[in-house]
């Protein structure tokens, strides 16, 4: 059931856009983002602080939106997964999740992307231990985590060594050998 819009005026800069909404006085940020601000990229997993799917950045800091009262972040700058890309250009961490298999079913992915993008902002060249520590509050039931660590490593290489993003749409192998036209 969607919460009915209550009587408190609330504003935030969500992904760089100023939003003014009427929210319920005790509303949870996750509910406001999903049901009122239209950020369906922010996922509801456990709703209890244990899975990390609902992670967003509040003034640049990763936070669990399911355990944040919206009223307490009134006026804040909030970044959701939708705010990571620069127009049509994916953030390196998004591109590398796609390249390295960091995302499979994808349900946990927004949370991982938000948390690891914050890690790379703060520390562009993290060790594997630092990467694992940053994602300790995010659960993934598909990948087994190694591909996620690989994705962060690869994104870090792009950011620190100036490596170019690969064009992931270019074919890696010829699916129909011998039928390549010509």
């Amino acid at each position, binding site marked *: 059931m969607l919460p009915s819009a209550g009587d408190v005026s609330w504003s935030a800069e969500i992904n760089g856009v100023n939003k003014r909404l009427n929210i319920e006085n005790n509303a949870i940020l996750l509910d406001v983002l999903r049901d009122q601000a239209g950020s369906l990229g922010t996922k*509801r997993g456990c709703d*209890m602080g244990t899975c*990390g799917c609902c992670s967003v950045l509040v003034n640049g800091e*990763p936070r669990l939106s399911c355990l*944040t*009262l919206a009223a*307490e972040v009134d006026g804040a700058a909030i970044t959701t997964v939708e705010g990571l890309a620069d127009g049509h250009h994916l953030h390196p961490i998004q591109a590398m999740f796609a390249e390295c298999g960091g995302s499979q079913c994808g349900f946990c992915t927004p949370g991982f992307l938000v948390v690891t993008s914050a890690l790379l902002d703060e520390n562009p060249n993290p060790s594997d231990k630092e990467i694992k520590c940053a994602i300790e*509050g995010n659960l993934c039931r598909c990948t087994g985590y190694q591909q996620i660590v690989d994705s962060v490593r690869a994104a870090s290489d792009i950011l620190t060594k100036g490596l170019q993003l690969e064009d992931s749409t270019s074919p890696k192998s010829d699916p129909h050998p011998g039928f390549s036209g010509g």
Partner: protein
Amino acid sequence: MMRMPPFKLHTPKTLNDALNIARELSNEEIEFDWIAGGTDLLPNYKWHLNAKPHVISLSGISELSKLNSNHIGAMVSLHDLAKSKYTHPVLVKAADSIASTLIRRSGTVGGNICLDTRCYWFNQTEQWRESIDWCHKCDCGTEADCRVIPNQNTLCVATYQADLAPVLMCLGATIHLASVNGIRSMPLHNFFELDGMTRNVLQHGELVTHITLPEDVNEWKGDYQKLRQRESWDFPEAGVAALWRMGTKGPTQLRIATTGLESIPGLHLEEANNAISKWNGSNTIDTLADAIRKSVKPVQNTWYSPSYRKKMVKVLTKRACAGLIER
């Protein structure tokens, strides 16, 4: 989706305003809770565990966030505590072991000290608890019995599972409280009060403002050891802190405290003093570890069995004391 129970949130900007709101609600006999980081209170509210009609948020009160070597504000986040150059290294270790990096950004020192006690008959959804006809701690008016120690209906033995208290108690922390009636302070170990529902000495309308540590805090060395299911974010099934001051022939002072075993954390003064008076290196540590094991009485309400947790208390004590005999 977990449905939040309805409540009115108050967001005062100063301590005085917060205490005045508390007084007004108390005068009208309206129940309320304080909320700090909300990482304990909100999950409990989502499960409809003893939710109140009003909640007063402390997050806008900047005067509660002061942090230096001897002063820790109640609203200092666990993240900031663990990252600060002022924090004692054993306190850093305990803070870093709490929950996950994400939860430590919101969770606070005050909320950690005042953490509600936990029990697997209690920390469950409303539907689950209804299916077992509730329990004494949240009986929904049914006068349900305690599921752990039945046929008594007066006592709750839910477990205190917060990590900071044992280390702070060993460091000689004093806790400072405020209400409209004034301020008071006491050694941290006197703050906690049985049973699992009473939890501590806080009166209605009273809150924790800060913790102070003695001047000599940096002369104490030690360790904190924690037993849990998953390293990433689980609550302590048992936790042992050991802190000492070294002389030339061994420790001159030693304090041991435990968490995750009973409804309040324990400071084991007698056992530690015995060890100092008969100090004989690793033999003393063995005897001490056994004495601590015998002094704790866990019950069957967390994931590991009481007997395993008791056995592990001995192991954790030895590990925490390992620095006493390292050369």
